[in-house]
């Protein structure tokens, strides 16, 4: 029996003769059965890493292994052993849903009967039966995304890489999709989940790495990444457009400003003082709204990357 652990070690990609880094010294392990989140803002180097794993980009330095296979030296093995759902829409305009699934299953080396059976189960589990005979061109973005998921996991590789799998998917089916992603883990498949939806990831991944500027800036379980924020609250202020960042009182432990959004972290026991400060800023016309909430993985993310997660509305406040 092979140990199908995925290992990235010192993976680096440079362009312009070493002047520009797409990613830098990335080392990770994904165990079989683990759902591993890869979080980071746009341009952080997540897609570069994914393309290196499936053999579309060659690392300038470092190694990538899946079980006994060297994925850098053997891109054929990489493409057979890894299933990849890209962020871009699947090219299935002229495929009927069941044809696209069956054909990719066969391309992935599946046995026809098993493909039919698992395709049927996935289609039912994701509640997309009514589109089984529909042409890809007539599908909504969300359904097309789900069909893409079924295509790449009908015969899953030992490592399944999903780039923003829930994009455009409605909330109900989103939950069903997460169930199926968890199921992949239960089948012993390693899953790399690329996302900037931090809250969704927090609920669904076993471990995660935050990538920023091409480097891994934190790695661990969602809880371990939140440890630093334990006993703290998030005080989010929507500043009046055009005003400078106000002077911060000493109770503010940390802050990030993105656009007019000022996200600050304060100790739990100073919640009252925090509210008083926010109300004062509103009365002075410096802030328009504020919200006080428990810290989440998002706060760790903001602290690590200096950016708000992409799904966070710029004006989020209560």
């Amino acid at each position, binding site marked *: 029996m*092979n140990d199908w652990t995925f290992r990235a070690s010192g993976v680096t990609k440079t362009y312009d003769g070493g002047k520009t880094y797409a990613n830098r010294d990335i080392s990770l392990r994904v165990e079989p059965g683990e759902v591993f989140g890869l979080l980071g803002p746009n341009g952080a180097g997540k897609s570069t890493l994914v*393309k290196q794993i*499936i*053999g*579309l*980009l*060659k690392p300038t330095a470092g190694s990538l292994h899946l079980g006994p*296979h060297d994925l850098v030296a*053997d*891109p*054929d*093995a990489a*493409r*057979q*052993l*890894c299933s*990849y759902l*890209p*962020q*871009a*829409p*699947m*090219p299935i*305009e*002229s*495929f009927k849903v069941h*044809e696209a699934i069956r*054909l*990719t299953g*066969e*391309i*992935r*080396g*599946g*046995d026809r009967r*098993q493909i039919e*059976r*698992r395709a049927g*189960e*996935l289609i039912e*589990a994701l509640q997309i039966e009514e589109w089984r005979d529909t*042409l890809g*061109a007539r599908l909504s973005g969300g359904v097309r995304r789900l069909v893409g998921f079924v295509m790449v*996991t*009908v*015969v*899953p*590789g*030992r490592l399944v890489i999903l780039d923003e799998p829930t994009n455009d998917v409605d909330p109900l089916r989103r939950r069903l999709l997460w169930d199926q992603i968890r*199921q992949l883990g239960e*089948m*012993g*498949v390693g899953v790399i989940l690329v996302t900037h939806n931090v809250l969704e990831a927090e609920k669904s991944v076993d471990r995660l790495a935050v990538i920023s500027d091409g480097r891994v800036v934190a790695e661990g379980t969602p809880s371990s990444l939140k440890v630093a924020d334990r006993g703290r609250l998030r005080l989010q202020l929507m500043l009046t457009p055009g005003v400078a960042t106000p002077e911060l009182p000493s109770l503010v432990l940390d802050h990030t400003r993105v656009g007019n959004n000022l996200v600050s972290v304060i100790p739990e026991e100073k919640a009252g003082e925090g509210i008083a400060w926010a109300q004062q800023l509103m009365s002075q016309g410096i802030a328009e709204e504020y919200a006080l909430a428990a810290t989440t993985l998002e706060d760790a993310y903001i602290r690590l990357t200096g950016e708000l997660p992409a799904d966070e509305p710029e004006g989020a406040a209560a």
Partner: protein
Amino acid sequence: MTAATTTYVRRGAGHWLAGLKAMLRWHLTSLRLVLPVMVAVQLLTASGLSIGMSLFYADVDARTGLFLGTGAAIVTLVLVGLVVAPQLVAGEKEAGTYDFTASLPVPRSASVVGWVAVSAIISLPAAVIALAISGWRFDLTFDVSWAVAPAVGLVVVCGTLIGYAVAHGIERPTVTQLLSQVFAFLVIGFTPITYPPENLPGWLASVHEVLPFYHMGVILRGALTQGLVTDVSGSYLVVAAWTVLAGVVTAIAMGRRR
């Protein structure tokens, strides 16, 4: 939930053949919505070219008639591979779906061979119809030899591989699309296929001695007629050399990891 996961890496002839079969289905299904239109456009273009030439040159001797009559079919066979593959691959790059197709676990060469077959499916019916129409309009009898199979095969493979080399070798899809237009322009207007090389300025005729397009015409004419062209074996060599070159460029471009 039942599923068999991939547990070993497939290699060898069986994997290659399965990949060819699957990619042929993949390409044909991908083109399902446009394939009938493509075949129809090729049929209309080729028939139009044949009829047009017969109207333009109403009264020609048998030799000239044979030359003109084979022209439309040859242009069709030469052009389809050169134009269709680059356009479609450039479209994939623009839509962002190129990476998914490139990540499919099939041997790249099987995918290319599948595409050559698709080129043949698009161009062959049109070429046959063009010949039939020319035969009727110019009152011709073609003298088709056994060499028609290797000649058509080589021309389709060469054209498709050049198209593929351009499509995968050039990063920017807009440049690829532009080049495929240049090919169409060059082959229809400035290649001695529907007229003899003597009609071109000397320097352009010399350029065509090196480029494959004129020679593709020579080997097809050699297989469809008797005594109309000479030095067919020399033309085979030129086209074969281009096929190898385009094959190597395609292999490097498709296997290349940026």
